[in-house]
């Protein structure tokens, strides 16, 4: 372990930030306080808080890393991650607010009597949380590896222990104030980094993005198909996952529901949309600036390429900037991690067990289940992160979104907008979406070739969404139609016998 001055700057920035987060989380004990925290602010401040909730260090690190290693395909991630956001507002937020239900389980329970549908949704949510959490772990472990010189494996083990302790000690919901500070910090550090990198870059802006310029710097084909085995259809599949995935995670807008006045809530989402859009545009610019600066790549494997932005900050801003950037990223990754563990385990213990299976069950049992599911989530995600150390973190987030798009999205949009969707169709559609996404993942290039060591994947794409979403929707449509036909035929037969 070598403590450089960079590590010192990291600690100087990270320690107060973590203290602030924990202090602000400790102040919020009840749901009423949590909702009240949102009410204090209107308009732009709440917009900043929503942005703070949403900002993803994984997409920041992942997209810059992807642009640096494979060129233009990173742009697709930036555009795709953003496109889902306005859809949540338009298709879900207002609607959920007007019916007074804010989670997928609530919506499904309200619409269908069959409790098994909630179980399918809960089980389908598990891979989303696990893979999303694994992406945070991969990014954090590489950061720790870079800062403290400890191995990736021991960094991951440390993180898993911290995550388990956080998960077991209970709720960690950060106040709006903490989220606002987080958002401002991210934008300040990112803006400074972009500015410094831009001022020290030789080619003017138009040439920065030109194919010739990029090709000089990168020894790979920089056009869209960056990874082996990726066909144009796989790219389409990725695009489907990116826009639909966030729609299956309505809780990313929890602060939208916490503002009492509907108009203020909408305005704050509008501000947040602008800020998040700016965030993704900055990431694209930063990626191409990084290509210019990091021509002699400091990394061999793709895993460390996740830190391209941190290496860039070291080059243009020295140890102070890179230490502070690492600290801010660590805090963002950590807060996403805690909220993922919380939503993941409460999906089982609260949404499924306490509200659906045993509405009269004991609180103790719910607490026990909450801890158990938190533990299982963290352990599974750590194992996943151990096996995915060389993966780009934006790719991992995209993979989590593929599961969300295959199970949660068809169920949620179906329950809200598809009047003819029957309970049986929803059940089998959810199961089909989950199984086909799992099949595509297990037999695809990541697991089949990467983990099991086979030479050829059974399912050729790294992105399963196109297949699994189509299967889920077709199954839902087929069963709904079949049931309607049975009812009408049954009715006609009944009339004949009378």
């Amino acid at each position, binding site marked *: 372990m070598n403590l450089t001055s960079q590590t010192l700057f990291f600690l100087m920035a990270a320690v107060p930030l973590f203290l602030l987060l924990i202090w602000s989380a400790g102040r919020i004990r009840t749901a009423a306080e949590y909702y009240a925290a949102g009410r204090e602010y209107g308009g732009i401040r709440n917009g900043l808080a929503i942005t703070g909730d949403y900002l993803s260090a994984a997409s920041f690190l992942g997209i810059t890393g992807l642009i640096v290693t494979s060129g233009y395909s990173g742009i697709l991630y930036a*555009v795709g991650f*953003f*496109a889902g956001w306005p859809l949540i507002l338009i*298709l879900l937020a207002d609607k959920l607010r007007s019916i007074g239900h804010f989670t997928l389980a609530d919506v499904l329970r309200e619409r269908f009597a069959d409790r098994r549908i909630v179980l399918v949704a809960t089980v389908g949510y598990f891979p989303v949380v696990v893979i999303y959490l694994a992406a945070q772990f991969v990014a954090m472990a590489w950061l720790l590896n870079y800062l403290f010189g400890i191995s990736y494996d021991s960094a991951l083990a440390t993180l898993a222990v911290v995550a388990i302790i956080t998960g077991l000690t209970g709720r960690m919901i950060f106040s709006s104030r903490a989220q606002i500070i987080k958002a401002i910090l991210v934008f300040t550090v990112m803006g400074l980094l972009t500015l410094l990198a831009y001022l020290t870059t030789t080619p003017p802006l*138009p040439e920065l993005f030109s*194919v010739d310029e990029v090709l000089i710097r990168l020894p790979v084909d920089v056009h869209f198909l960056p990874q082996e085995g990726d066909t144009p259809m796989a790219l389409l599949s990725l695009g489907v996952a990116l*826009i639909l995935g966030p729609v299956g995670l309505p809780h990313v807008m929890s602060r939208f529901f916490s503002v009492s006045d509907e108009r203020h809530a909408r305005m704050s989402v509008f501000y947040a*949309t602008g800020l998040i*859009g700016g965030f993704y545009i900055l990431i694209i610019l930063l990626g191409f600036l990084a290509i210019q600066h990091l021509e002699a790549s400091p990394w061999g494997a793709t895993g460390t390429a996740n830190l391209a932005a941190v290496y860039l900050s070291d080059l243009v801003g020295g140890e102070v900037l890179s230490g502070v950037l690492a600290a801010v990223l660590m805090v963002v990754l950590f807060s996403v991690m805690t909220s993922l563990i919380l939503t993941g385990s409460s999906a089982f213990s609260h949404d499924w067990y306490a509200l659906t299976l045993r509405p009269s069950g004991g609180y103790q049992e719910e607490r026990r289940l909450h801890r158990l599911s938190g533990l299982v989530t963290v352990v599974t995600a750590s194992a996943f992160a151990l096996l995915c150390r060389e993966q780009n973190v934006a790719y991992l987030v995209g993979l989590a979104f593929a599961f969300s798009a295959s199970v949660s999205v068809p169920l949620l949009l179906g329950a809200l907008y598809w009047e003819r969707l029957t309970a049986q169709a929803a059940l089998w559609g959810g199961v089909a979406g989950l199984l086909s996404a799992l099949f595509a993942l297990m037999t695809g290039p990541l697991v089949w070739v990467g983990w099991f060591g086979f030479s050829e994947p059974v399912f050729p794409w790294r992105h399963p969404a196109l297949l699994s979403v189509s299967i889920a929707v077709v199954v839902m449509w087929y069963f709904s139609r079949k049931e309607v036909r049975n009812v009408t035929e049954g009715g006609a037969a009944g009339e004949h016998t009378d």
Partner: protein
Amino acid sequence: MLTYTVIVVIAGNQSMPQDQRQLHVQLLMNPDYQRLRLRIRLYRRRMAMVIAGCYFLFLLTCVGAPELLFTPVSQSNPTPWLIPLSVFLILLQFLVTGIYVKQMNTVFDEEMKTLRREVGL
């Protein structure tokens, strides 16, 4: 159908005072109110389709004709079209969100308020 269910639920809701219940049912039976609900629904659908449509147009170009996106903007500017188009797409989504918020906040909310006031809610 859905409105009918809501009416039944509200009419049978014992926790709500009798006069309140009647006013709610009155509002739900109002044809103007039903028309407004339909307009909001269609508007939402249209805006969602604009966003998804633009995105998939972009995506299908990436998949089907990437060479189009890699042509330079002009002879003096070697930036490929992909860059300005993706920035434009992000800005467009932001703009559409803004139009949606403005329409909901200034038009539909006001009309809803007027209708509620008419029945005395």
